[in-house]
């Protein structure tokens, strides 16, 4: 195929312990480290491996977000993507809007495959890939832990509650990445320098003819309920005693 599109989202770094603002209007993101959503990084790694195996001519990273998301796209270029497209948007667009915007890019770029993370670790929606596939009228293979592309089809191993499900999909289509698909490569300094010269195009949702709307409104944010502090027992006998006390043995 000619082009694989990889959707990447700028999200709070995996290692940040997120805190809810004291006034309940959101979570604290000021001064917090931002990164590529880890599932998207895995999706990008897989696309790069498909390119290295000769399955695609180019890998294009795409993102919808604030202008700061250029940092994450540059990281994607440093990992090995050929070019990047940022659809600038001040608000955090919701999955249906993302899917509509991605579909426009799919048509524009005549993509043979779209790879995305199965979910972002901020909003935890797990929707965008499925929605894109639906609007496109094409196959979806979510939570992938293995992908083999063979001509116009892909065999995808999916992590499901019952184990591993294997499906064949006709391309073009959408695949979302789960954790065990691969381990993303480290970016080397020379690659970061090279990435600065790679093309990064910006456009707006309006340029693509996409209107946001029908959004779900988030209001109050609260920290989760804490579990009450437990007891530390001295030995196994103490553990058995404590379980009996609770009526669990």
């Amino acid at each position, binding site marked *: 195929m000619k082009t694989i599109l990889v959707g990447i989202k700028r999200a709070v770094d995996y290692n940040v312990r997120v805190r809810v603002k004291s006034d309940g209007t959101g979570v604290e993101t000021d001064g917090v480290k931002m990164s590529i959503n880890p599932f998207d990084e895995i999706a990008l790694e897989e696309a790069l491996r498909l390119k290295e195996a000769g399955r695609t001519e180019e890998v294009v990273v795409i993102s919808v977000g604030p202008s700061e998301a250029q940092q994450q796209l540059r990281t994607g270029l440093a990992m090995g993507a050929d070019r990047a497209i940022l659809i600038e948007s001040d608000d955090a667009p919701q999955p249906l809007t993302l899917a509509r915007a991605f579909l426009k890019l799919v048509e524009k770029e005549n993509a043979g495959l779209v790879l995305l993370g199965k979910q972002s670790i901020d*909003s935890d929606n797990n929707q965008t890939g499925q929605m894109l596939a639906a609007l496109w009228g094409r196959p979806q293979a979510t939570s992938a832990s293995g992908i083999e592309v063979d001509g116009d089809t892909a065999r995808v191993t999916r992590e499901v509650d019952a184990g591993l499900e294997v*499906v064949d999909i006709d391309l073009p289509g959408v695949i979302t990445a789960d954790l*065990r698909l691969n381990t993303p490569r480290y970016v080397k300094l020379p690659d970061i320098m090279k990435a600065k010269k790679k093309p990064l195009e910006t456009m707006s949702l309006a340029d693509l003819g996409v209107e946001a709307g029908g959004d*779900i*409104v*988030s209001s109050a944010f609260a920290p989760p309920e804490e579990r009450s502090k437990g007891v530390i027992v001295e030995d*196994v006998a103490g553990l058995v005693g404590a379980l009996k006390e609770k009526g669990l043995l």
Partner: protein
Amino acid sequence: MAKILIIAEHDGSTLNPSAAKSVACAADISDAEIDVLVLAADGESVASQAAEIAGVSRVLVANNAANEPALAVVHAPQVVAAASGYSHVFGPSTTWGKDLMPRVAALLSVNQISDIMAVLGSHEFRRPIYAGNAIVTVTAPAESVVVATVRTASYKSAGGGNSAAVESLELDVELPTHTRFVELQSGSSDRPDLQTAARVVSGGRALGSAEDFEIIYKLADKLGAGVGASRAAVDAGYVPNEMQVGQTGKIIAPELYVAIGISGAIQHLTGIKDAGTIVAINKDSEAPIFEVADIGLVADLFDAVPELEAKL
């Protein structure tokens, strides 16, 4: 009045327990009429199980050979056709529901509410974000259908004893053939199902190998418990992926959860925080698992676990 359609997960013969939990969530919406949709090759038996769930008005069965094994791309257009006239369409936040429901939502031109953990009103809900580090109140647009997944660990199953009407449904929908099921690789087990077991014993990276994980199975069998694992233990290859408990694995709510050799990364804690009693056995007294454990034992698991098993 809310007219709610629950999409039921099943394996062709047995209704998944997530259906009764989705019904329990739907029943929290005031003045709700709840129907259940069964998409199957031959769904009579599954439908009769769904008809027993308290609170269900009707069970609708759409039979089609293409419905099994279940594929989201095949089910989604049928759900859309069946959803006409309903104010809400709910599925479970199992891997099946997560695959299917957003495709349904997009076909209905709405965003989806993922992982409902509490109902505040017909269009207002609570859901977890940031791996459960924050809980947000969300409101769906009043004029459109609400498509949502239900965080099953937040709900106790609706009761039984009902005998709702079962009706067959003809859905005249074109179904795609661009996606084909090949196989399901599944470790068969006689142990209680991880997602519904009243007791679960999980092992972590500290077990060190698949062979040594055996002591977890032995303890679980003594307790009549299901067996889970941390992501680290799955990544290390000690056990298969379907045993992973946590944010990206299974989110569970057993009465008793025993975490052995699990440090307690936030992604793991997200999967167990609805458990009744959490027991932790770990060598490291500073491990974060002790912050959420009701009963903690600081000990070498290779001494403590066999001793515990012998005492039961």
